[in-house]
């Protein structure tokens, strides 16, 4: 056996490119593992396993690098290896300086790998400072030998053993000879270990070759995984998508066939396709840990940079996600983490002063729930200062002062996602967060996910991200409207309601329709009208698809509900990006194309989700002085002869009619028995002093519920539901009114229900169980 075999040099250059490519991939992976293990080692200094792993990563890079002739790379990794072997010998204990030096080395190696990938050479970067840093660390005083120094060497069974160990075990060399050779290497001898041993006569070339063979055999045994090009996987995934479509077509065809052998074959095809689809999906699944592993490094660098101490904890790193989604959340996650460390977590002295532990905690959690992946990022930092956020939003003209005063805590927090707030530089320091949080939200929504933020001042912030498992093939409900078919992603679907005939229970007042669904008013959206499709002839049957859009529910009225189907999601071309209510398209069993509805986009279009519209409206009104506006659905009603009033539809739980004969008296009040409770009635005309409330046989009652108790507001007539921005003109605060606004071109008083109930000492009134 000649010596070139020993050094492992390829005999020809044909496979060279392939070898280098593999070297780059493996080395980059090795460096990632190096980073995360080194940081774990910083916490658990006694772990021999981690130390071995860190050492092995650099050792491998050095070894392969020297075979390929990358001298600088070898020099630097060798310097790092020297530090690590001192640590293995227990002569050096990992401290912050050493860790920083080693991480800097890893960065230098990465940079060289990049150069190699781009130009084929290591480049002419100057890495002297890295080498100096490493040798400075070596000169540091030896670590005190306490009980925390690493345990004696033990070989991890799964990892390929070192050549020296093999030779010693198979009694080819004495341990001292191997040790001497390693020390030669440590002093800068560039020859591989085997070569040194052969040259010094400690081992015969055959024995070393045998040792190398055993080592590589071990490597082969250890790897029952293969590397596959992502492009190939994508192609297979696309083909499976096509197969699913073809399967759907065959299944549709079976409906018209009676040949039993064909039917059973089709059935088998169906099962196999489903399994194949699942299998291929699994190949594309990666644990979220793959992204998370990079985060501790970022946190470490950031927190060192700004003098903070941050501990990162991870739960559920094994949670799997489709590769495309992993790619898509990489940047948003990094951004969130940066924000948390930069702005969320306070410096140690501030934390101590506030009675918290000096080091901040950053917790990443991931788990599956309802076909979705939830990711939560929480910190125990300062939280989001809502008042400052509001002030800034007002200063930026994003909202008006009046509007700000009426915003809920949640709405205020959601301002961090507003685009205007993130761009202005000075906002970052004040608002706490908001550097590009709009981009974070956009990126997450792009893949069909949602972000929510919760924060408690002084206690911390929690970001919740929900994303789908995969984007490629999803279950969907197929509906028909205006002779067109549409697919609705199953994740947004809550239930299907079919109402027939008169008791349909749809209150259709001037085009704004609501449906009474188990006591709650569900706003209805007619797909025909929203998409301007030809309506079909009136029918007794109304099909309602109850959908979840963000935090809101609404009912989508469609002509027909067809079936659920696995659909292959295809993106729409960029010419169609402006149409917000479609998420993509798919090919149906009959080969025709059907559009996939974007539930959130549709809800926004139909103004079911009002919150998202506030921003534009506020912008339109910027500079409108005292006036404020909030786009909302209002229930308009008449009290007395000509009193016109409105309350937010969101406060209304039901509209009821009671015959006057049903009224009973209880504790000096008018009450009715309503759904197992005694519900007090409040005649608004009497209470508010409007004249002309005639005695009617049928009482119109607006049921207001709070904390599980109901109160019936008796009005003369339900007028309409108005969906518009109410500009409060007079904020007179006359006790029971929040003000007046022009709704549907007429001045309308806005009733302050909680204030009214308080004044009637009804706020705490219990609906007594009947």
């Amino acid at each position, binding site marked *: 056996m000649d010596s070139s075999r020993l050094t492992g040099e390829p005999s020809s250059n044909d496979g060279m490119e392939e070898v280098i490519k593999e070297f780059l991939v493996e080395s980059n992976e090795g460096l990632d593992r190096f980073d995360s293990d080194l940081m774990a080692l910083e916490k658990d200094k006694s772990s021999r396993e981690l130390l071995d792993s860190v050492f092995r990563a650099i050792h491998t890079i050095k070894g392969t690098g020297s075979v390929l002739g990358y001298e600088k790379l070898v020099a630097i990794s060798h310097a790092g290896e020297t530090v690590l072997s001192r640590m293995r010998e227990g002569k050096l204990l990992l401290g912050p300086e050493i860790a920083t030096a080693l991480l800097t080395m890893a960065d230098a190696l990465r940079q060289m790998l990049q150069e190699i990938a781009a130009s084929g050479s290591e480049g002419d970067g100057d890495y002297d400072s890295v080498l100096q840093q490493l040798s400075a660390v070596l000169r540091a005083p030896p670590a005190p030998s306490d009980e925390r120094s690493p345990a004696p060497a033990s070989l991890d069974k799964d990892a390929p053993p070192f050549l020296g160990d093999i030779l010693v075990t198979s009694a080819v060399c004495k341990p001292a000879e191997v040790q001497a050779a390693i020390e030669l290497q440590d002093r800068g001898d560039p020859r591989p270990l085997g070569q040194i041993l052969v040259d010094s006569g400690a081992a015969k070339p055959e024995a070393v070759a045998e040792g190398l063979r055993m080592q590589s055999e071990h490597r082969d045994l250890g790897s029952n995984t293969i590397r596959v090009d992502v492009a190939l996987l994508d192609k297979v995934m696309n083909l499976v998508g096509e197969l699913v479509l073809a399967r759907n077509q065959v299944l549709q065809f079976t409906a018209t066939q009676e040949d039993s052998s064909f039917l059973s074959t089709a059935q088998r095809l169906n099962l196999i396709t489903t399994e194949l689809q699942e299998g291929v999906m699994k190949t594309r699944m990666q644990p979220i840990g793959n992204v998370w592993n990079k985060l501790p490094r970022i946190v470490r660098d950031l927190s060192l940079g700004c003098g903070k101490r941050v501990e990162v904890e991870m739960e559920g790193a094994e949670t799997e996600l489709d590769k495309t989604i992993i790619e898509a959340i990489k940047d948003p996650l990094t951004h969130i983490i940066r924000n948390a460390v930069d702005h969320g977590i306070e410096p140690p002295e501030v934390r101590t002063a506030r009675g918290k532990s000096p080091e901040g905690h950053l917790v990443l959690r991931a788990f599956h729930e309802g076909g979705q992946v939830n990711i939560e990022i929480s910190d125990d930092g300062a939280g989001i200062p809502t008042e400052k956020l509001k002030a800034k939003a007002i200063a930026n003209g994003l909202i008006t002062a009046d509007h700000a005063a009426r915003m809920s805590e949640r709405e205020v927090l959601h301002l961090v996602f507003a685009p205007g707030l993130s761009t202005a530089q000075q906002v970052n320091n004040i608002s706490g967060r908001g550097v590009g949080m709009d981009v974070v939200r956009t990126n997450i929504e792009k893949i069909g996910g949602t972000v929510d933020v919760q924060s408690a001042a002084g206690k911390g912030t929690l970001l919740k991200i929900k994303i789908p498992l995969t984007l490629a093939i999803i279950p969907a409900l197929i509906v028909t409207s205006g002779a067109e078919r549409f697919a609705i992603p199953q994740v947004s679907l809550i239930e299907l309601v079919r109402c027939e005939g008169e008791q349909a229970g749809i209150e259709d007042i001037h085009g704004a329709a609501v449906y009474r669904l188990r006591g709650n008013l569900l706003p209805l959206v007619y797909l025909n009208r929203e998409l301007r499709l030809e309506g079909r002839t009136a029918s007794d049957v109304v099909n309602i698809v109850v959908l979840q859009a963000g935090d809101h529910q609404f009912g989508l009225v469609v002509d027909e509900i067809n079936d659920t189907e696995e659909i292959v999601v295809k993106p729409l071309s960029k010419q169609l990006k402006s149409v917000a209510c479609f998420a993509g398209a798919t090919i149906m069993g009959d080969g*025709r194309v059907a559009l996939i509805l974007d539930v959130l986009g549709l809800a926004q279009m139909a103004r079911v989700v009002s919150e998202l519209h506030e921003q534009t409206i506020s912008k339109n009104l910027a500079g409108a002085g005292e006036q404020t506006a909030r786009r909302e659905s209002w229930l308009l009603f008449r009290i007395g002869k000509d009193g016109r009033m409105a309350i937010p539809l969101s406060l209304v739980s039901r509209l009821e009619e009671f015959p006057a004969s049903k009224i009973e008296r209880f504790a000096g009040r008018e009450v009715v028995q309503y759904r197992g409770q005694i519900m007090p009635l409040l005649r608004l005309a009497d209470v508010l002093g409007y004249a002309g409330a005639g005695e009617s046989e049928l009482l119109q009652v607006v049921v207001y519920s709070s904390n599980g108790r109901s109160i019936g507001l008796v009005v003369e007539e339900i007028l309409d539901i108005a969906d518009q921005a109410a500009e409060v003109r007079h904020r007179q605060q006359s006790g029971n009114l929040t003000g007046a606004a022009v709704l549907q071109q007429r001045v309308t008083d806005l009733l302050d229900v909680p204030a009214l109930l308080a004044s009637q000492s009804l706020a705490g009134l219990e609906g007594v169980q009947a």
Partner: protein
Amino acid sequence: MSQPRQLCTFFLEDLFFGVEVEKVQEVIRYQEMTRIPLAPEVIAGLINLRGQIVTAIDLRRQLQLPARTGEQLPMNVVIRREDGPISLLVDEIGDVVEVEEDSFENPPDTLESRRRDFLRGIYKLKEDLLLLLDTEKAVSVAGVHAA
């Protein structure tokens, strides 16, 4: 810039158009189409091109020509593009025509500006004038208002 030599030709109304052969992925007969509610009106719909979903643009509407009449079904000229193919709906398909570089002229200034925008130039053939279509313009959807 090197001038194209082979043009795939088609007719719209009485106009004779050409597109560089390299840009054309294929020419197919009328396909059943799924229309897209609320989409800009120049978009005719979506077609299923062997499992791929392709947006079809009505070139008549794009060029503000009168709508197609009668029984005549349009043909699809599928244009190859970096971000996926796009189909242009045309009246009829012509031959592949070889053109001489020196027969090329810029579109005359007298042409109505909107139509002129869609032309890269004109080839003077023996019998006809062949209008070289600017495919980038043809597939762009201008003045889209968010629905």
